[in-house]
């Protein structure tokens, strides 16, 4: 996990190393302060100030250096963590661009957004913490121990006793508290989902007069969360009195024992005539106390950092897992970069979305389409229509058999070449922020306005575009909310046409367009673009009845094929669908 993430540091390696370096230098400069101060105090006690100026200078200099190093550490960590987050976000985004449709099937779009927003921010915060505080705290502890031992090793043993004890305490508390918090945050998420459901369904709640019922349900959940929170909080806050207890005990022992050592040489002398409990001055006693406080304080800090990392690690794991995601579809070695014509052929094609899936989505598909033909594909939801056409532009790869375009296996083409030659108007089409012209130009960025207008006319979109105050320069709002469903579909068709594709596939993409307009779009396509192969998927018989060939799909197979007239004679499903729709809206015909 760390290895994958570390790859995103890249050009910020320097800052990522400088930040902790300066933090370390700051700690070193700072750690000497109490020690030197002890000398100063002892000089005063001895009423000898010969070294006062030098000592003062050293002290001020050290403090200034610490300030400067601290500043630099902050500065570089800001660059390092921001740069790291920038690169991570970029890596995820780039990775998404390289993935295939089957990868997207595994990730909802909100999950992808979360990877690049919340998760990235979490990782940035962790990184910021890592290059600054996470290093500072342990360094402070280690140096404080060294300093304390250099003053009086015997007395400092108390620290070596206290530190592991407190660490164990902190560890135990978190060990029991973290699972509680995980659980409660999980419940918290569920509560929020529940609230969301209520906001979305407020009309239903009010219509069925269920306000009181919802309140009761919410109350139970909220109280459950409260109880868990209290449990967790009560456990975590034990850290504070535990810390104080350790601190006070240590301080009391150091103060009393220390003063005894100062006055008497406590414990007598060893054989060599050195005091067994070491030597201590008043100034040194005060620095020992300060080192002790630093040690314990930073240990608490370390505990907090530990907790934060457990929170962040979930985000990091999610990001890593996604960065490891590789595209299922890759360019061939020697790709073909020209599509000869719009002929399409399926030979014994079998397909399913995941290897584990039990049933084939497409079974034994054989068909051949000549360039320029109009093809209709009809069948119910989930019968395999959309799956079938997604194989043509190689959004997915077949499991068995072969799909060819212009007489060449789609797997031999350069992917970009193939997709530029095959234009798909998807079922769930999306417009983007920008003007109407911008949106149509997705098909060809450099197209002149005349070309844009030409395709808009074929898609029967020109008239309504001109009815907008700013015509082609009228903005589309995010999500395309300022155009109606039918208008949106027509803009999407225009966009697809601007690519000058050899094959145009419309996946149920005129269902919000009225019948008359739909017919004129079909006519426009036939007269203006006779060489382009047109494949129309629909649930409405009316949309495909004038096609050269119609394929009827059921349970992943092509069960019948032919023209409207022959199918009405031969195909049960086709007849049934036709009859049902005649009954429903015969006036449409």
């Amino acid at each position, binding site marked *: 996990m760390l290895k994958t993430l570390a790859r995103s540091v890249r050009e910020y390696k320097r800052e990522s190393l400088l930040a902790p370096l300066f933090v370390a230098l*700051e700690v070193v400069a700072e750690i000497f*302060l109490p020690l030197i*101060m002890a000398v100063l105090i002892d000089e005063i006690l001895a009423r000898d100030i010969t070294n*006062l100026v030098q000592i003062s200078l050293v002290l*001020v200099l050290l*403090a200034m250096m610490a*300030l400067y190093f*601290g*500043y630099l*550490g*902050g500065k570089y*960590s*800001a*660059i390092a963590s*921001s*740069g790291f987050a*920038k690169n991570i976000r970029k890596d995820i*985004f780039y990775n998404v661009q390289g993935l295939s449709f089957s990868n997207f099937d595994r990730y909802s779009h909100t999950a992808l957004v979360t990877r690049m927003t919340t998760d990235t921010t979490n990782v940035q915060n962790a990184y910021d913490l890592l290059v600054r505080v996470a290093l500072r705290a342990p360094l402070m502890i280690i140096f404080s121990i060294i300093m304390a031992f250099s003053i009086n090793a015997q007395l400092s043993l108390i620290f070596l006793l206290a530190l592991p004890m407190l660490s164990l305490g902190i560890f135990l508390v978190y060990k029991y508290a973290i699972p509680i918090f995980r659980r409660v945050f999980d419940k918290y998420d569920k509560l929020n*989902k529940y609230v969301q*459901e*209520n*906001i*979305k*369904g*407020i009309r239903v709640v*009010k*219509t*069925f*007069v*269920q306000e009181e019922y*919802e*309140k009761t349900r919410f*109350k139970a959940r*909220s109280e459950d969360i409260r109880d868990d929170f*209290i449990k967790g*909080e009560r456990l975590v*806050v034990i850290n*504070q009195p535990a810390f*104080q207890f350790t601190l*006070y005990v240590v301080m009391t022992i150091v103060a*009393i024992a220390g*003063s005894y050592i100062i*006055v008497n040489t406590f414990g007598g002398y060893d054989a060599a005539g050195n005091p067994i409990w070491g030597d201590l001055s*008043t100034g040194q*006693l005060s620095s020992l*106390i300060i080192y002790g*406080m630093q040690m314990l304080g930073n240990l608490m800090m370390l505990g907090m950092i530990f907790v934060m990392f457990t929170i962040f690690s979930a985000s990091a794991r999610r990001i890593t897992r996604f960065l490891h995601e590789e595209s299922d579809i890759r360019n061939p070695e020697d790709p073909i970069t020209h599509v000869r014509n719009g002929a399409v052929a399926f030979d014994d094609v079998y397909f399913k979305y995941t290897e584990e899936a039990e049933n084939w989505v497409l079974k034994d598909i054989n068909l051949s389409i000549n360039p320029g033909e109009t093809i209709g594909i009809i069948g*119910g939801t989930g019968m395999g229509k959309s799956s079938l056409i997604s194989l043509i532009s190689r*959004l997915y790869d077949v499991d068995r058999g072969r799909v060819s375009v212009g007489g060449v296996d789609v797997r031999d083409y350069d992917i970009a070449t193939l*997709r530029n030659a095959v234009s798909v108007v*998807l*079922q769930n*089409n999306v417009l983007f922020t920008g003007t109407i012209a911008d949106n149509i130009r997705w098909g060809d960025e450099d197209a002149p306005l005349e070309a844009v207008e030409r395709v808009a006319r074929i898609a029967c979109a020109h008239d309504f575009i001109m009815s907008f105050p700013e015509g082609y320069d009228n903005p589309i709002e995010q999500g395309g909310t300022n155009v*109606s469903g*039918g208008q949106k579909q027509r803009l999407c068709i225009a966009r697809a046409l601007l690519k000058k594709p050899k094959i145009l596939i419309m996946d149920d993409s005129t269902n919000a367009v*009225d019948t008359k307009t739909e017919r004129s779009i079909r006519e426009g396509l036939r007269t203006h673009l006779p060489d382009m192969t047109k494949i129309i998927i629909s*649930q409405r018989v009316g949309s495909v009845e004038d096609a050269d060939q119609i394929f009827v799909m059921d349970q992943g197979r092509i069960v019948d094929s032919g023209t409207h007239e022959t199918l009405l004679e031969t195909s049960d499903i086709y007849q049934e669908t036709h009859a049902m*729709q005649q009954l*429903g*809206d015969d006036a449409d015909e």
Partner: protein
Amino acid sequence: MMPMSKKATLFRLIKELFLTNKKAVIIVFISLIFASAGMMSISVFIQIIIDDAIMPALDAGWPAVADRLFAILIAMIVVYTLAITGTLLYTQIMAKVGQDYLDDIRKAMFEKMESLPINFFDRNSHGDIMSYYTNDVDTLRQFITQSLVQFTMTMLTLMFIIGVMLYYSFILTVFVGIGAFIMFKVTSRVGGKSSERFKSQQKSLGAVEGYIEEMMHGQRVVKSFVREEKAKEEFDALNETWYDDSATARHYGNILMPVLHNIGNILYVSLAILGSILVYFNVTNIGFSGIYPFSIATIGIVVSFLSLSRQFSQNIRMVSQQAPMVAMALGGASRIFYLLSLEEEHDEGYVTLVNCIEEDGKIREVDEETGEWAWKHPHRDGRLTYRKLEGDIVLSNVDFQYVEDTPVLKDVSVYAHPGQTIALVGETGAGKTTITNLINRFYEIKDGKVRYDGININKIKKPDLRRSIGMVLQDTSLFSGTVRDNIRYGRKDASDADVIEAAKTANAYDFIQHLPKGLDTDLSADGANLSEGQRQLISIARAACANSPVLILDEATSSIDTRTEALVQEGMNRLMEGRTVFVIAHRLSTVKNADAIMVMDHGEIIERGDHDSLIEEKGVYYQLYTGALEME
């Protein structure tokens, strides 16, 4: 009402917290005093030990101070025990008080939300309403569980420290004061810059995230159009801008703490130097403890001052660290209080819906369920009349507007007799949905009258009115829970037989039986594991189970396959039987079978009549029907 000021919010927060559990809060406060006094006392004990034990002992020997030292030890044990007890108490109590209060707030918010009029939900996006629960409650939680107590404790400690400093020495206190002043200046300067940059960082982050959101949503289109490189390019530009802003914002944020920390260090060493000079030159010391030359005033005071000044700057650092979080929490709290202050949907109705039986043409109210309902109408003169619930709805000359001066409905009259189906037809925004919103009083009409079985609907209690009107909306909104829970959502006492019956009416029973656990299948949030068509079938069953005499139907436009569509259609038709139905129609077949069709345009009914007469008229309806106009 405007959101409250920060100060007012803080006072209200503290007041409410206090009222949650007065005794506990008082104990917490006292405990905090002990805890912070304990922290401060470390420095004081150093002074006492040095001046009262070590110094005399150096001259007079250990035995002379043994008693004194023992007394100090006892004092330390007592003070520290009190301090630890204080900490233990306030942390344990606050954990409960804080969570109790948060629970109260959450419940108050939800209860308020359920009682707000529909127009609140129309005016505020779902995301905005959600953020009350997520962001605002979250910042408040952090404030109450962490910042508030820490802040109080820090303030108390600072007060103690200043007191002790003044007791020891005025000169040194003034010196520390200067240091504190510098630290505050630095904090407000750097902190100000930081929050300023942070805002622009938030803005550019919003831009990147907006772009990401849009691209992820349209990712399949991006791929089909081979726009990956272009997308990367645009993304990079936004991401770079964010990086610049983030690096500067964090720059100020990250340097603040080390800078403050080391200003504290400089103060600390300067104090040591100054103290040494004062002691050495016997400068007279003045403090609340008395006036004496510094040499007498002892080295203990200087040492103690050193550690006091360390604690002092540490606490100032804490304050500046907490300040932005406190500001954020107060912002969140003031939004929450604003939500809680919103006016609830009010109900001045007094006509209620009761079960009844009809005997000899007379209606008698009964307690048990009879399947027969009546309006119970108390009159001003004390009379009580009953009227049978039939489902006769009349709108006469209704005007309506969502906002002042933009009329949405103009002089609309609709007559729906019991059992009739009224189809509303017209473009988006023509006012079809608005009519249905007025019938169940999600909104109040501006002028005109709506009568239900001859009773002005303003006189009917809203819950009773709504109970008598079922609804099947385009947006099916199922709730987490089992299929059974969802079907009997509108009638909690429905028996299993009722539920199955409703499911059968809706044509939903077949597919429900094929679900893993049948009626007991748990629908994950919002029924995500069902197809759109299945969700529609369940929402029809839900309305069937509620069994109300009037129905509002908003036909779905989303494409479902022909077979399911036929099932939905059939279920709908069965549901409509014997009921008064207002249907916002998208299917021509539905329209054709309606008793009356209202063609709406810009808030007015421009054509009315049944299918045949309207076709003959050759007006807008004719054009819609023949497909010359889009119907949405």
